[in-house]
């Protein structure tokens, strides 16, 4: 790592900034998609459930990289105009990780006790009020741990944009490698950078989870070190569900 000049470091750090932006905007879009699709999948109208289910299966079924290729090379031909590469990337990442997220939203909505819905009915709340006042506030702390896992997957997924020429961290590494002719130092450095980003994200989500649980009168989650993920493979009777499908994305 000795022969990395300041200019090359700058290149990498700029790449990190792009990675952070990509993660942020894709997560924002993904969260929006996840909520809309996840809630739609519990809708009382069958059409809505089928359509949102189809969205989830299609975008979860295909590879994020293939989707990205499609957004970059096929969509512009079809539309006749082209998005900025950065926004094509955000669109591809947000749409596909949002599909994974919708499963998290749907699952945690379904996990709220049906009796809570009944209590809402007994008090004459409308379906929308029951969703926003009773079910969602109880469901969302449950969403945070799996959402954290998904967010890490998204962060890792942003590296794909380097293939499309977006100047993120992985792209910066390629340039540095070309400049120095050495691979080991720069790839080690950026792996550590990605790890640090993942670590920071995880800590942030832990804080969020603690606040969320306190906000509904529950005990805070137990503290644990580092980025170690909590796989919620249920014990005994239930087999692991959703964990893997939400996990190994793209």
């Amino acid at each position, binding site marked *: 790592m000795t022969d990395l000049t300041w200019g090359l470091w700058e290149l990498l750090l700029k790449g990190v900034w792009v990675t952070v932006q990509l993660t942020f905007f894709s997560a924002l879009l993904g969260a929006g998609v996840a909520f809309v699709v996840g809630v739609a999948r519990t809708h009382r109208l069958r059409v809505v459930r089928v359509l949102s289910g189809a969205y989830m299966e299609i975008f979860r079924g295909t590879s994020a990289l293939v989707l990205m290729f499609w957004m970059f090379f096929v969509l512009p031909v079809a539309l006749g105009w082209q998005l900025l590469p950065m926004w094509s990337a955000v669109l591809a990442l947000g749409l596909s990780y949002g599909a994974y997220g919708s499963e998290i939203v749907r699952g945690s909505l379904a996990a709220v006790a049906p*009796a809570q819905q*009944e209590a809402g*009915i*007994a008090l004459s709340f409308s379906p929308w009020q029951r969703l926003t*006042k009773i079910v969602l506030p109880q469901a969302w702390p449950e969403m945070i741990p799996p959402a954290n896992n998904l967010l890490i997957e998204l962060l890792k997924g942003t590296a794909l944009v380097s293939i499309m020429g977006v100047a993120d961290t992985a792209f910066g590494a390629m340039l540095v490698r070309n400049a120095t002719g050495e691979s080991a130092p720069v790839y080690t450095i950026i792996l550590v950078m990605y790890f640090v980003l993942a670590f920071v994200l995880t800590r942030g989500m832990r804080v969020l989870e603690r606040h969320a649980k306190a906000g509904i*009168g529950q005990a805070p989650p137990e503290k644990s070190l580092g980025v170690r993920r909590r796989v919620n493979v249920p014990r005994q009777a239930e087999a692991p569900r959703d964990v893997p499908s939400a996990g190994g994305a793209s």
Partner: protein
Amino acid sequence: MSTDSSTSKETRNPAVDGTELIEFKDVTKRFGNNVVLDNLCFNVDSGKHVTLIGPSGSGKTTILRLLMTLVKPEEGTIKVAGDYLTHEQRDGKLVPASERHSREVRKNIGMVFQQFNLFPNMRVLRNITEAPVHVLGLPKDEAEQRARELLELVGLTEHIDKYPSQLSGGQQQRVAIARALAMRPQVLLLDEVTSALDPELVAGVLDVLRDIAHTTDITMLCVTHEMNFARDISDDVLMFDAGRVIESGSPEKIFSDPEHERTREFLSAVL
């Protein structure tokens, strides 16, 4: 109690006083092949306290859940305060009710559940004020004022800022009673409200309900296994078996001189 006179019908139609407030007509409810209610007919007059007794699985709780539209009848009609609950009249014909229509009629009805079902994400005060503010459109001050009065009634004033998880089962159930009363229902449905409680907490909840029964003119429909409580508060007792009312009458009569063999068997088993 000043709060209680307003509990039932300050805002309601006085014309229904002393008349049929709840009317079940030929109601049949099945779950699969299992007939839970079989052509059931019965009425509850306004202001009366009616207790439903009978072995479990005899359909008592289903009646409360039908009134709350948590389940729908296969046949028959239910009227509440003169309005169809699960149907509405359109062009002179009875059609299944829209969600909106059911909700309008349902506003007359409050329910207290066996498992309390308080909202864990809201503090006690907000549990009580949420529906009055957002369903009835009451101003927040007024709803809070009323919530405080109700909390006083159920003896929980000092717990106003706690979350449900910080309360005992008995306290939670008393909050749930206050929450139901805050909607000023004409009818209060009580679904085995003490069954989930530790024995030492039962008395506190029943005392509150006795108090409400004796000092207000709210109509009560009550499913319970607490026979002494039923005797204390009821005007009428309906004995259920296999989806039918097999015997009904005043508590004195049902508890001391039942006519039906099944009633005798049941009472000797629970008393």
